[in-house]
Every structure is written in C-alpha cells, then in structure tokens.
C-alpha cells in the first residue's frame, strides 16, 4: 500500500475531490474528501505516513468538507461538513476547515464504534506497556502527549483509548495530536524539529494546530499495548511536578465519567474497564513544565515497583 506522502500533490487532490482518500487509521477506516484546495497540503503533511486503504471496499465513515452553497459560500465564506453524505454540524468559517476536518473525524471515531469501550484519554506506550492520560480539555494532556511522543514514546492516541470488550489491551488510533494556544509554542520550544501543521486562530478552542504523528507510531497502528498506568494530568503554571497515588476505585469512576460510551455498554463496560484498571497503577499528576513532567513519567514507567502487586477481587468480603 502506498502512503499518502508517496503520492504527488495532484494525485492526492484528485482523490480528495473525487472518490475520497481512504485511510487505515487503525481500528477504523475513514474516507476523507474535500474540494477546498487549502486542505491539500495540511492533509498530505499530517496524514503523510498513513497507507492509502484502496483495497478496502467498505469504510467505517466518510467525512467531506465543502464550501457552503450560495450565500454561505460567497458572502459568509463558510464551509460545511458531511458525514456519510449527510450534512452534519453547523456551518463554520471556511478558514477553520482543517480543525473542522479533524473534529469531524474525532466525532465519528468517538461516537460510532460502540463495539469497543471508548475512553476519553490519551494513550502512549513505553517498554511495551501503555500509559493512559485521561483528562478534560484544559488539563494539559495534549501538550503532555505531544512532549512524550517527541521524547520517544509511541503514540497510540491523543484523545481516545479504544478497548475491545473484555480485552486487556488498547488499540492504537495514532492520528495528529491537537494542540492549542500556548501549548503550540510550548511544543515548538520543546522540540524545534517537531512537525506541526498550520495554525488556525479564532476557533472555539482558541488557536489550534496539529502535531504530525511519528511514522513509527503510524506504522505500528495495528499493534495493541497492555495498560499499566493511569495518570490524570493537571497543568498548573509554576507548580512543582508531583505524582500522587490515587485509589483504583477513584480512577475507575473518573475514567468512566469521562468515557464516551461506558454507560451505553452496561455490564460489558463495567467489566472491561475493571479489567483495565485492575492492571494499572493510578496517579494524579500536577505539573508546571513539560520537561519535568516527562521526566517524572519516564521514572514512573521504568520503576518496576510502580506496577500494582495486588489484583482486585470480584466480591465484597
């Protein structure tokens, strides 16, 4: 299979405008399409390492970003998104087409594949085991994820932990890492060689940009990893980086609360999340700067004594 960056720009443009660009993202295959010429370069850049899934006759969802029609096109300069051929979401300023594309793909990935338990969490891997970083927007988890990935950790996902029912592992979906506002500069300072796509100011989340996922992470997107740590990050400017252990019931509930579909899956959700938490040491981490946070996490995963010794039990008393 050719990767996106191996095709010429005109070839990519043709596909985007016409039949769409089918990408194997890991557990899902998405088809992207657009007639907006300004999206061509960003798509090539951010998805360059992904193989084109031409051989897949059936995709899981299709996202198209188009200019609005009539007045929306010429006067208001708006774009519209289509999911599986149907108008989706409200029209948006055309200048925000790229974040909108990413957002639409996110939405499809978070709401469709209910055959999996979907947790709202970044996932990165080191030494064969993975670290879950659950967190609301604003917790700094995306900055942290980007920093870890640039420090040699494998990226499984920046937003969603995909867990097959009853499984003891997480499936990768190594898409571009979304960064906003100050975290964009923080990452650029952290690693001058970081490949970051165009910035889009003025979105609901402020200025948004995306870090290209490392080729290695993309190449290993079908390689699951077993979880060993759950860390709830919280960025606090000027704070001293510190890890505080939290109980597994507390971690379970916080993760379940943030999950995309825990309650939909009922007892399967409960059992699957329990299996994951059972295998993890759980912490809350406050951090004031990226470098010390990464150092603290490196130490955590290298220290064998941080693995939970006692598995949970299944009945009271």
């Amino acid at each position, binding site marked *: 299979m050719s990767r996106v960056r191996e095709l010429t720009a005109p070839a990519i443009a043709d596909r985007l405008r016409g039949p769409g660009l089918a990408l194997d993202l890991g557990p899902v295959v998405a088809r992207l399409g657009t007639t907006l010429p300004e999206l061509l370069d960003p798509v090539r850049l951010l998805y360059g390492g992904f193989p084109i899934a031409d051989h897949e006759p*059936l995709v*899981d969802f299709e996202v198209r970003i188009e200019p609005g029609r009539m007045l929306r096109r010429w006067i208001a300069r708006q774009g519209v998104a289509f999911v599986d051929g149907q108008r989706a979401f409200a029209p948006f300023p055309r200048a925000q087409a790229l974040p909108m594309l990413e957002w639409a793909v996110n939405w499809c990935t978070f709401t469709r*594949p209910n*055959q999996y338990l979907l947790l709202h969490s970044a996932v990165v891997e080191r030494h064969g085991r993975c670290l879950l970083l659950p967190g609301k927007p604003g917790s700094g988890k995306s900055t942290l994820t980007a920093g870890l990935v640039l420090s040699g950790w494998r990226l499984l996902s920046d937003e969603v932990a995909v867990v097959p029912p009853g499984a003891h592992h997480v499936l990768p979906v190594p898409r571009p890492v979304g960064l906003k506002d100050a975290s964009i500069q923080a990452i650029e300072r952290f690693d001058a060689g970081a490949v970051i796509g165009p910035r889009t100011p003025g979105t609901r989340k402020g200025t948004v940009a995306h870090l290209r996922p490392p080729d290695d992470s993309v190449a290993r997107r079908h390689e699951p990893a077993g979880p060993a740590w759950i860390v709830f990050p919280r960025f606090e400017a000027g704070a001293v980086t510190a890890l505080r252990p939290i109980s597994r019931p507390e971690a379970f509930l916080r993760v379940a609360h943030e999950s995309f579909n825990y309650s*939909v899956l009922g007892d*399967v959700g409960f059992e699957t999340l329990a299996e994951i938490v059972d295998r993890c040491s759980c912490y809350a981490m406050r951090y004031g700067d990226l470098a010390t946070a990464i150092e603290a996490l490196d130490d955590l995963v290298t220290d064998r004594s941080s693995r939970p010794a006692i598995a949970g039990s299944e009945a009271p008393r």
Partner: protein
Amino acid sequence: MTGRTDRDLLLGALRDPLCLGRLEIHAWSELLPAARRAGVLARLAHLTQQRGVDDALPPRARQQLAAARPLAEQHARILRWEVSRIRDALSALDVRLVLLKGAAYVLAGLPAGRGRLASDVDVLVPRGRIAEVERALLARGFRSMKLHPYDQRYYRTWSHELPPLRHERRRSVVDVHHTILPLTGRVHPDPEKLLAAAEPLAEPGLWVLSPEDLVLHSATHLFQDGDLGGGLRDLLDLDALLRDFGERRSGFWSQLVPRAESLGLTRPLYYSLRFCRRLLETPVPESTWRAAEQAGRPPRPLPTLMDELVLRAVCPDRDDRRTPGAQAARVVLYARSHWLRMPPWLLAYHLTRKALRAWVPDRDEAKA
C-alpha cells in the same frame, strides 16, 4: 450497483435479511449509510443477528452492525428500569399503569421492541386521575420540562398528554397520556375503551394496550399524530407488531378492522396496512385488507397522491434529500397531520407561533 436506489436496497434488506449474506460488498457502502440516515441501523443489526446471518457478512459490515446494537440495548434497559421506578412511584395509587409504544413493546417482550432507539416512557391513565399521577411522579423527583407558557397551555388544555416530565437525577422522560390523540382533533378514540381492553403483563402492576390497540396507536402515530419524521422506523414497528400478533394471537386479524371502526381509526389503519404491504411485504390476509379498504379508504384520487408523498417522506433517498421534492413532501404531510389535529383557525395560530419561535428561540425552552 444495478441502478436500484438506496431506498430499494434498504427496504429489500429489511424485508429479507437473509439475502444480505449474498449482498456484494459495494452495496454495503450504500446500505449502511442509508440505514443510518433512516434511523434503522440498530433494527437492521438486530434482524441480522436474529436471523443468524451475521457470520456470513463481510467483517467490516458485521462490525458496523455490531456497533449499532449496544445503544438500542441500553435504551431497552433504560425503559425497563424507568417503568419499574414509575410503577413504584404510583404504587400507592390504585391506578392501572398502562404502557404505550416502546415501553409496551419492550416490557411485553415483543419483537417490535428490539433494535429500537427510544427511551421515553409513554403511559395511559384515566383523565380523572391525571392530577394524582402527576403529583406522585413529582414527589419522586420528576419535574415538568420547562416549556414556553404557550406550550404548557397547549398541552394541558388541548393535547392528549401532560407536558413531559423529566427526572431530575436520571434525566429520563415520562409522557403521561389520558387519550391517544389530541382533544382538538377530528377523531376521538374513546380512552375508556382502550383502558378496558388493556392486558396485564406477567409482571405485577403493569398493563399494555391490547394487540389491536397497540397496532392502531402506532398507526395513528405514524399517519396522523406525528410529523412523519419517524417514517421508516415507525413503519417497521407496525410491521413487527402485525407479523408477531398475526402469528401468535388467534383472532387478531379478524378483530383488527372492527376495532378500528369502534375507535374511529379506520383511515390510519388503511394507510398503515397499505404501506406495510407495499414497502415491507407484511403478510396481511386478503380478507383483512379488503375490510380495511372498505372501511378506511378515502375517496380517490387521494390515495395515489399519498403514495408518492409517503414514499418520499418515509424513505428519502440520498439524492432526494437535495431536491426540494422530499422537503416539500414532508411539509405537506406535516401540514396534513396538524390539520387532522386542530381546527383550521387554531392551526394557523399554532403554526405561526411555532414559526416565529424558530427564529427567536426562547430562554425557557428546555434543551433536549
């Protein structure tokens, strides 16, 4: 693709899920989005599993169908739990709790309850007991959903139900009906008859409408009560009810039309049977169909016009959507539904207010 439309593909799949084992892969990329658009993917997923054809499907198709089931299962779970809480709340009152629609289908274990996405509970109580029932529910944490004062008035004065009640912690919704069609309508099925014919479930304290009445209620909902947005979903409910009752309940087919006559619902029954037969090949016995035609068929040329409108509104093709035709079809049918509900002067007033409010959303309106 052989030139058939998405609509034909979808209807074919729903009529005969077993043929899906032979469906070519490219047709799946039309079928799955079509099912999603019509809101029936979960139903299709239930059917493929039930007929045992799941294993014969292409892996990615099987996965997408599998992904559609959990939400329907959750909704059924919610319905069962909510019914148990409502029964508990009303246990001190000596009121028969009669379940309607989705709650009835699920609690009675009917095929119509599978693969359905709806978690609001609909119940029917005698009009004279409405105030007590509302009080009992409010005492257990239900709250009247905030509505524009106009809507509150509409509900309490003219409608067939209380304004919906939402539970403050669980966020679940219960609709308490005292009849099944609005009081302003031209047709007034007698709620006493509905209540008298209700059947108890195995679970104590729970009742459902009789089979004929469940079918007739669904028929009115599709063709008279609602705005036809439910379209194919509602037609599938009807088809599932008719097939199941037709098979399991002796006397069902012969009682259906007389019951419709007794309740004044022959017109919606006629349309329901017509479209179920046409679109879903529901096996309605000839004798029943003839009787329904005789009792409920409107004067020509109305049926032909309705055919076209309903077909387009119930099963919009992907291309249809972009044409003004499908939109217009829906608007005409919506206007017709409202016409049946309200006298013309009231209709004009109601529609004008709704149109105005669409442009100036109210602070008071509750979010869904």
